[in-house]
């Protein structure tokens, strides 16, 4: 596998060049994975695409990058910690842009210069970012034909001139690898094309949208927020194609309340947001719990608190997702643990929400949501999703919306059903839905709402367990990729290691957790939050072995596989 950073100030085209490379890698039969780091400026801020290519599936980043290519330096030096390099790495800059910033040069990486802007200028309509894409392709052995075919597909509509300029720029960059003596150290073996229809290229946010629609979501209320906007942007036109609708609304309070209204009307509904939006929605999530209206809220987490770091990842919304609501408000919290899992987990969240008549929070994050990857196309999953609805009542029967049932699930009348008119209530209520402050009604309804989540059999999907042995990494969300990569290094060396990645965070599954960790005497918890939110959550709900440590840090720096390995090595030596 080979890891590349392609950087430049916003507008220089680093991300679009990286996207071309990613797709070309897919065409050439490689797997590929790309995340991005974008600064605060709308345009002109530092922008970096982090890429990793492989013959085998790629699920996370490596410890270090082999190549850093920068179209310009601007303030890229401030973000050196996000693109770790080493003495074996290669930094490629444009001589017109001056020296490599000290923070990057300090890695001791070899430096090379390619006059990308000048090369681009020599081609009418040529752009530096396409020259850069050509350079990277040449460096890693990605066939030029694959790049050209991607560019032809994406630029055909712009006419022959633009196409010719791009192709020339790609070739000039490709040839520059030999011309400037950049070497062959980073070449990958040729890819193994999987055949048509076997692989796909998708972002986590798109996969989230696709999972939602597959689950049956047909109404979305949308308020834009980084880094969740792409979920909404993909769902808008896609929902329209399948007879659903997305409506942009005035704020997040409207978003959550619109989907409460739409779902009350019988249409499975969703909104997507980030931390600040989730904070605003929290009161109304409690309404959905109390009135038993199913819905899904996707929170693509970013650095917090407050506005925080909008375009960079962190796993720090766990506490608000679990505990944000006032009162005793049982609800679902789920977290995808990879780009493709965004599809499965969101699909499952819709299924559970509809089945259990409860809100489901899906905690994705920027690292997964805005990651784009070339992957094997997963098999389609089918859930028997069915909201239990009430049948028309005949004269004399009294429909009880909140009937206290053994399962805790009560048939929900959809407006239009004769004889079942009721008022969905945020006030505590009796089984008929009439407001009630009686202790008995409160207890019965609290029990019912807790029971329906507790009694349900969530099956094996509650977590992913890999490996065996007496040591385990327990993690969640986007830390799962690095954890698996760390474990794979043990496995490669013949050592044992379990990785447990929890997908269903609430309700907790103590029996399944104990089963998954049976025989484990050493647990390392891995997460990306400053206050170790996940560790504290595990401590509160699960039996952990006496030897339990936590490796946690705030975003936006991703957890690297070698850091996880180092934790265990230090532990063994202690």
């Amino acid at each position, binding site marked *: 596998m080979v890891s590349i950073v392609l950087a430049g100030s916003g507008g220089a085209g680093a991300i679009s060049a990286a996207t071309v490379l990613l797709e070309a890698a897919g065409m050439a039969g490689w797997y590929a994975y790309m995340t991005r780091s974008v600064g605060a400026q709308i345009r002109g801020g530092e922008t970096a695409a982090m890429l990793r290519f492989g013959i085998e599936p790629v699920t996370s980043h490596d410890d270090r990058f082999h190549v850093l290519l920068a179209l310009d330096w601007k303030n890229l030096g401030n973000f050196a910690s996000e693109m770790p390099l080493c003495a074996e790495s290669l930094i490629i800059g444009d001589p017109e842009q001056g020296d490599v910033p000290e923070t990057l040069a300090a890695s001791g990486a070899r430096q090379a210069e390619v006059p990308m802007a000048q090369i681009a200028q020599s081609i009418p309509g040529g752009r530096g970012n396409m020259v850069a894409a050509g350079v990277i392709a040449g460096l890693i052995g990605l066939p030029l034909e694959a790049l050209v075919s991607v560019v032809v597909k994406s630029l055909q509509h712009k006419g022959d001139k633009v196409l010719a300029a791009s192709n020339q720029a790609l070739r000039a960059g490709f040839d520059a690898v030999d011309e400037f003596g950049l070497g062959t150290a980073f070449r990958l073996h040729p890819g193994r094309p999987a055949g048509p229809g076997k692989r796909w290229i998708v972002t986590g946010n798109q996969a989230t949208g*696709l999972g939602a629609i597959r689950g049956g979501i047909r109404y979305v209320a949308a308020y834009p927020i980084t880094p969740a906007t792409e979920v909404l942007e993909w769902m808008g036109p896609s929902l*329209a194609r399948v007879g659903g609708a997305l409506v942009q*609304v005035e704020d997040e309070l*409207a978003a959550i309340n619109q989907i*409460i*209204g739409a779902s009350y*009307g019988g249409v499975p509904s969703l909104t997507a947001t980030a931390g600040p939006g989730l904070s605003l929605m929290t009161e109304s999530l409690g309404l959905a719990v109390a009135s038993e209206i199913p819905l899904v809220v996707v929170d693509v987490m970013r650095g917090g608190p407050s506005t925080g770091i909008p375009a960079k990842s962190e796993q720090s919304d766990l506490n608000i997702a679990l505990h944000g609501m006032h009162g005793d408000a049982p609800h679902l919290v789920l977290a995808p643990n990879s780009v493709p899992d965004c599809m499965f987990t969101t699909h499952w969240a819709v299924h559970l929400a509809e089945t259990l008549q409860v809100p489901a929070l899906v905690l994705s994050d920027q690292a997964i949501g805005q990651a784009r990857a070339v992957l094997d196309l997963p098999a389609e999953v089918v859930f028997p999703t069915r909201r239990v609805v009430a049948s028309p009542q005949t004269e004399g029967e009294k429909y009880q919306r909140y009937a206290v049932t053994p399962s805790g699930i009560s048939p929900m009348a959809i*407006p239009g059903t004769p004889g079942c008119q009721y*008022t969905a209530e945020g006030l505590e209520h009796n089984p008929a839905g009439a407001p009630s402050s009686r202790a008995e009604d409160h207890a019965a309804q609290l029990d019912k709402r807790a029971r329906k989540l507790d009694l349900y059999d969530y099956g094996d999907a509650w977590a992913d367990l890999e490996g065996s042995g007496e040591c385990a990494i327990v993690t969640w969300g986007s830390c799962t990729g690095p954890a698996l990569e760390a474990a794979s290094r043990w496995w490669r060396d013949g050592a044992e290691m379990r990785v447990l990645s929890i997908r269903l965070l609430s309700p907790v599954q103590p029996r399944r957790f104990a089963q998954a960790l049976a025989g484990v005497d050493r647990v390392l918890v891995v997460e990306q939050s400053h206050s170790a939110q996940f560790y504290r959550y595990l401590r509160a709900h699960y039996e952990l072995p006496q030897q339990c440590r936590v490796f946690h840090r705030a975003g936006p720096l991703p957890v690297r596989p070698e850091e996880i390995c180092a934790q265990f090595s230090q532990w063994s030596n202690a």
Partner: protein
Amino acid sequence: MNETLARTCSTGVAAYEPDAYRSDIRPVWCPGCGDYSVLAALTNALAHLQLPPEQIALVSGIGCSSRIPAYTGVYGLHGVHGRALPVATGLKLARPDLTVLVAGGDGDGFSIGGNHFLHACRRNADLTYIVMDNQVYGMTKGQASPTTAADWRGSDLTPDGTGLVPFQPLTIALAAGANFVARCFSGDPANLTEILVEAIRHPGFSVVQVLSPCVTFRPEQRQWKNLVRMAPASAGADLRSAARHLMEDDGLSIGRVLYRGDRAPFAVKRKNTVEVEKLVEEFIL
């Protein structure tokens, strides 16, 4: 309108009596509260329209008047404070076949829910919004609301008065794009019934402000029955007349539709051109 009402009653074909739209739950309202009359006028209006109760939804937020859905026999949703309009909008857009009504008070609609009010007017979804305005927060026992006069000293929270210019809901509704605007008085239920019938029939976002006295915390509002007067016919001539009337008015002219717009209601277009299974194709290499 009176003629139409009379005709329906005289033919005797009404399948739904007003009681068909009432539940058997007793309101929490104080004796003498104006909201009883609003409830009665609403059930009369629905009986006049002969809408099947299961095809109607009434959405509300929090406050005395927001308790109204439970007292009706239609589908209801009693949500959180200030968010009735987005709930109703989501319901209407997802279920355009339903008749969706929204009810609440001046605090719920114009203070905590003020932003939604502006955008509901702009969006012009086919909703009827009934605001029972008593210029006070009644459920929390008598604090100044956005429509309270600046010098009202009845609350310990604002012992010197709020000093704030009262919110002008109908002027703002007109400016923001509401498609139907009227002011009524709960003490004239016959007129209120007529106007509610018109509001519900009118496509788009209809706002009906109902002066509805709070006899407990604003006992002086008992005098409204002597102070209100019919708005002049000229007030409802067009948008400009309505706006001028509302800006010059003392807030106590009632009984007339001030504006009927012809803006097409907001609705989502549904195409349904592909199977869900096809959506993945754009991602396949």
